[in-house]
């Protein structure tokens, strides 16, 4: 008996998966794994025992032991990531497949990229010529809405939510979709009825995106989306310890930055990003949804001379 497998490109890897990965576009077929130099990650179904008693328990149902990283999501699935190459998924019988996939493509793939020695940022990446910018921020800061606005303007959105940056400071393109709340979808003039929900009974949708670029690009700008009570939209440079604090805060699942070797590698990777890119805070009025004004400000900051950009919202 053969089990159906599908093959997809993601973050410069070939995913060879027993779980259907509809978010990643059409199945490329087994030939994708035959390409010389292809880095293959296998995703298999299998029975897992959950966290071993000897493993370091981390928050959010995560654990780690040596080169094994686990995630237990009660009611959905248990996941195991091994050596940056192998993922095993043990889904509960009645679990919503979309929710199973959501954790797989989020926390689990983020953990895998961390095992592969990347700095994984919580944000979106978009292309600027032969380089790229990443917009980070807390959940609800407006990252995906901004990515949708940049996409609407014809820019290539390279990754949504999880952006791995390699040791040479290149951001790796991820999934060809943006996850958006219903109101943001409607504001784009798209009918949510035609989109798939990210999970059962969640008003967040997968917006498929077209892009002309799927190669790694040097990360030159990092923008941190923040909110304040005032009316102005400002962009200010960060430096030194502040830069590190921002990169640490917006490292995807930074609960995983734990244990001497991982902390050391993470600090090194942050230093490499800080040396190659300009890191700025974008402070926006809390009372207004300002995706357009934010896109204007960020794009003019990228195009313009260094210094503080001030624009009224």
């Amino acid at each position, binding site marked *: 008996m053969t089990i159906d497998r599908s093959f997809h490109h993601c973050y410069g890897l070939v995913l060879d998966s027993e779980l259907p990965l509809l978010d990643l576009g059409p199945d490329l077929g087994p030939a994708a794994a035959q390409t010389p130099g292809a880095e293959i990650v296998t995703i298999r179904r299998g029975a897992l025992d959950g966290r071993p008693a000897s493993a370091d328990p981390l928050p959010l149902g995560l654990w780690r032991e040596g080169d094994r990283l686990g995630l237990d999501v009660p009611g959905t699935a248990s996941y195991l990531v091994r050596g940056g190459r192998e993922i095993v998924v043990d889904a509960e019988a009645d679990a919503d497949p979309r929710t199973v996939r959501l954790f797989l493509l989020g926390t689990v793939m983020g953990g895998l990229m961390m095992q592969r020695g990347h700095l994984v940022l919580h944000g979106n990446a978009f292309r600027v010529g032969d380089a790229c910018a990443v917009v980070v921020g807390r959940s609800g800061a407006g990252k995906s809405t901004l990515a949708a606005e940049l996409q609407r303007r014809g820019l290539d959105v390279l990754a949504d939510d999880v952006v791995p940056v390699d040791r040479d400071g290149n951001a790796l393109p991820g999934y060809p979709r943006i996850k958006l709340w219903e109101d943001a979808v409607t504001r784009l003039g798209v009918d949510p009825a035609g989109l798939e929900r990210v999970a059962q009974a969640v008003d967040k949708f997968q917006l498929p995106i077209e892009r002309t670029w799927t190669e790694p690009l040097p990360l030159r700008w990092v923008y941190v989306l923040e909110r304040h009570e005032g009316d102005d939209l400002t962009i200010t440079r960060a430096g030194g310890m502040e830069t590190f604090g921002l990169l640490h805060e917006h490292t995807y699942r930074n609960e995983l930055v734990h244990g001497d070797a991982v902390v050391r590698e993470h600090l090194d990777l*942050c230093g490499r990003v800080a040396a190659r890119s300009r890191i700025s805070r974008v402070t926006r009025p809390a009372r207004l949804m300002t995706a357009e004004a934010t896109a204007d400000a960020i794009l003019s900051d990228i195009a313009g001379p260094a210094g503080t950009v001030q624009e009224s919202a």
Partner: protein
Amino acid sequence: MTEQPDHSSATTFVRRPGLHAVEMDGELVMMGHEQGEYYGLKDVAASLWEHLAEPRTAEELCALVADEYDVTADACRADVVAFLDELAGKDLIERR
């Protein structure tokens, strides 16, 4: 009980092994001794940290700072000693 560092002339101070620091925009960002602790060192503090790669007496450090920053060793002694106390208090240096 915390032992107070001794600043008598023969005592040397040196970085604890295994601590890791990375430069960001001219500032040193350093892992602390405890999980999740980080410290930023800049200017004189960063320079002192560089010198603490090898065992140094407080007096040697004062002389190095005095030379680099064009002040007298007397003028910076109190600050250097206070900084060494702070580093020792955070377990970032050890006394030999």
